[in-house]
């Protein structure tokens, strides 16, 4: 019947019959010139990435006002904080795509690991009084261990069942966080970051650009790791498992190990994102543990385009941006001037986000990057 990988078939093909998953791998061409073409292909993926990175890294020096788009100057604290949050979530979405887009694992529990990274960092800083580096290692180590345990159990089943087991684990974690055991998590009020334990550069409104760079660095790390993995045998094995698990097994891939690897790797990157999230936001909050958060990760990845690095990051960034900025739209004067019921409905940011999401799924099933790719090709072919 259905499996979470069904969609991939549609996400990965567009009507021209070409694929985007395989751009890394389209070098299976014929004999001569292969090497050159491969190098060219690699260049074609690396150059835009480096360019975009350059532009993003320079933003804290851009003192231009973009009214309506960002709160104040591009490099003002408000904009920097907003962009930092967007980037962190973009990176987290990328980590989720390792599971969902690459390996076809529909997990509803990714939030668990992001939250684990975030909470374990804040807790080990203030509760266990560790220095930052040690706290970071502890948070990542424990989260990865947790991922291993959850993965070993949950991967015994597949498809929607897997989604539900992971959901169950995440629900359990969410409940535990809300119960505030031993006062460690702060319940629904969250756990603030111990300011004295982190470098001054990361604290205070004026230092927002440094938090922005931190978030950017996280995205770069996640990007590089995912790129390496996707190009490696493990990445191909993940694709094989996604496409046809039984076939992969008969070929000799240890499918359980492949899925576990993807799960642990994705969770590791997710918890790294959680830790950075805590640093950028100055604390952990229980919203990270909720299944809505995982659900929104799914939304982001699909929004941007599953199985594509640009797609995941873009989806994450856009979603977070929209979520934060739609509040402005809702209170815009033109909304207030609309008839009562319409105005009341439109003043709910979630309504706009939900409706927008439906539209994207509807008109750009391969995600925004897929749509972009299609436009580029169409104009090129004219």
């Amino acid at each position, binding site marked *: 019947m259905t499996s979470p990988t069904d969609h991939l078939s549609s996400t990965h093909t*567009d*009507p*021209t*019959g070409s694929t985007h998953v395989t751009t890394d791998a389209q070098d299976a061409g014929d004999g001569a010139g292969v090497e050159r073409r491969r190098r060219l292909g690699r260049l074609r993926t690396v150059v835009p990435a480096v360019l975009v990175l350059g532009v993003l890294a320079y933003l804290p020096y851009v003192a231009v006002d973009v009214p309506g788009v960002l709160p104040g100057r591009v490099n003002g604290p408000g904009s920097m904080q907003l962009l930092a949050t967007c980037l962190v979530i973009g990176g987290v979405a990328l980590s989720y795509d390792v599971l969902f887009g690459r390996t076809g694992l529909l997990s509803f529990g990714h939030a668990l690991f992001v939250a684990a990274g975030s909470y374990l960092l804040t807790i080990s800083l203030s509760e266990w009084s560790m220095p930052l580096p040690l706290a970071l290692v502890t948070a990542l180590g424990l989260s990865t261990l947790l991922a291993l345990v959850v993965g070993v159990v949950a991967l015994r089943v597949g498809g929607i069942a897997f989604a539900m087991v992971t959901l169950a684990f995440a629900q359990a974690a969410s409940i535990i966080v809300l119960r505030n055991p031993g006062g460690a998590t702060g319940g629904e009020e969250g756990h603030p970051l111990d300011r004295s334990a982190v470098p001054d550069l990361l604290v205070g409104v004026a230092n927002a650009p440094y938090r922005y760079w931190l978030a950017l660095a996280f995205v770069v790390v996640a990007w590089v790791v995912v790129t390496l993995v996707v190009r490696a045998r493990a990445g191909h094995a993940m694709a094989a498992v996604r496409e046809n698990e039984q076939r992969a097994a008969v070929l000799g891939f240890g499918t359980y190990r492949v899925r576990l690897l993807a799960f642990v790797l994705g969770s590791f990157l997710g918890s790294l994102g959680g830790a950075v999230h805590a640093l950028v936001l100055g604390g952990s909050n229980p919203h990270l543990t909720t299944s809505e958060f995982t659900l929104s990760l799914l939304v982001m990845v699909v929004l941007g385009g599953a199985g594509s690095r640009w797609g995941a990051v873009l989806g994450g960034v856009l979603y977070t941006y929209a979520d934060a900025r739609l509040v402005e739209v809702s209170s815009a004067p033109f909304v207030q001037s609309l008839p009562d019921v319409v105005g009341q409905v439109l003043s709910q940011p979630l309504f706009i986000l939900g409706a927008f999401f439906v539209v994207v799924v509807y008109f750009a099933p391969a995600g925004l990057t897929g749509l972009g790719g299609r436009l580029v090709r169409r104009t090129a072919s004219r």
Partner: protein
Amino acid sequence: MTRTTPVLEIEDLHVRYGGSHILQGVDCDVPATGVTALLGRNGVGKTTTLRAIIGLAPRTGRIRLHGREIQRLATARIVRGGIGYVPEDREVFGGLTVEENLRLVDPERGVDAPVVERLFPELVRRRGQRAGTLSGGQQQMVALARVLLRENALLLIDEPTKGLAPKLVTEVADVLAEVSRTTPILLVEQNLPLVRRIADRVVVLDAGQVVHRGAAAELVADVALTRELLGVSMRREGAA
């Protein structure tokens, strides 16, 4: 052969999938009697032709059933208009029992229809088994039985003997021969001996176009032509 009006007329049929142009102007008629075999190498578009007729592939051109244009109708309408379709991969409903598979088409009689009892006694024995657990050959029987439950103006049958044991191939050939006495069949088949035995006419496709049309006996007789069109000789095959 008497010249009757054809049951199905295809004019300038095109099928495109995204950028690839699969059928590039197929023209052919299916006469109102006998078996018309649609031949060709792997991937030339035989299945696609059948799917286009039944409305399962995006198509342009003109298709007439008994003189009525059907190329704009939805699949279900076309089928109710009298075209039965047996797909290449059998596509039985694996989760339903044999009985339920047949009742889907014929709610009243299902497995108990005379045609099933006569042609496929094995299915009567297995009426309660889930079709998904049937062997390949058994599934083919379900797929065939399913369309035979209904009165059809035309049957489209895609490689019905694929994966069948030799004995069954013979039996299926007999069934098809018998059915074709009352219902015209457009048959896609790789098994040339079978084609030779039951087909009246052949249409050969290559690269999305019709490259040959004629009586089956003619093609069989012309060794050179067979080799040119299909890459093999029917005679030698038949000897095996």
